[in-house]
């Protein structure tokens, strides 16, 4: 009996696993959190144009509304496709809540005709919004 016990202790006590497991859990938590953020932010079907000199987004107004405009001119917000009429009523309601200083970012596909971008901008200006900017890629990582 004492002999068997000694064996067992040497089996389990060979390597101390605790620090490794700590690190592995840290890594898992990091990846879980960053994957979630990315999913919120991006619609991968839209290819943005490059703007290497544009100002980097540092502090973002939490009210910012990002409108995606696909190359065929379809609007969407947070991957939800919207008709022009729906987009306009959403923008008008948002202006009613947050005011006209609400920043709007238009994320247009690089192949989209200006006509489509114009439609999106016109809907925003009709709703009374004036802080409009275009999203572009500053640097590919």
């Amino acid at each position, binding site marked *: 009996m004492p002999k068997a016990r000694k064996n067992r202790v040497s089996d389990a006590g060979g390597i101390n696993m605790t620090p490794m497991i700590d690190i592995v859990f840290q*890594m*898992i938590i990091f990846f879980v959190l960053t994957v979630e953020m990315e999913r919120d932010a991006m619609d991968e079907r839209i290819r943005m144009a490059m703007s290497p000199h544009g*100002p980097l987004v540092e502090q973002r107004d939490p009210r910012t509304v990002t409108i995606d405009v696909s190359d065929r001119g379809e609007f969407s917000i947070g991957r939800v496709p919207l008709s022009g009429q729906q987009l306009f009523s959403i923008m008008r309601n948002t202006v009613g809540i947050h005011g006209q200083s609400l920043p709007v970012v238009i994320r247009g596909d690089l192949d989209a005709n200006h006509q489509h*971008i114009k439609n999106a901008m016109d809907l925003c200006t009709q709703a009374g919004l004036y802080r409009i900017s275009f999203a572009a890629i500053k640097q590919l990582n």
Partner: protein
Amino acid sequence: MAHKRKRKRVSLIDAELSMTPMIDIVFQLLIYFILTFEVLDDIAHLDVYRPAPDAEQREQMETPNVLRVVIYADGFTVNDRQMRLPEIERTLGRLAALDRDQTVLIMATAHSRHENLIEILDLCAKVGLRNLSVVSMN
């Protein structure tokens, strides 16, 4: 009886927490997240001033002295002269050297690509021009 007690004791020692399955699962999770992980690209936001739709015509009439960049589907003109991007950059650079707050009127035709508009806005950001007015024309 004695035999039975002995077996019970052995199984009690066996019941120590076995880490192996947990570590297997944890590594599976880790590999999954590493493979699906993508670094986000750095995003720039190019601010523009957009006149309200009804004010568009008035804006063009009122400001004959501003630099006017027109984006066509197949090229650019600056104050009605056809230019390429490096030339536009020099022109914008000269303007920025005089006054960075000078308004630049950027007019995009309906069939121009959005990428070309971004290119012009990028040049303006590069030379430091801040007052950019984007209007649309047919």
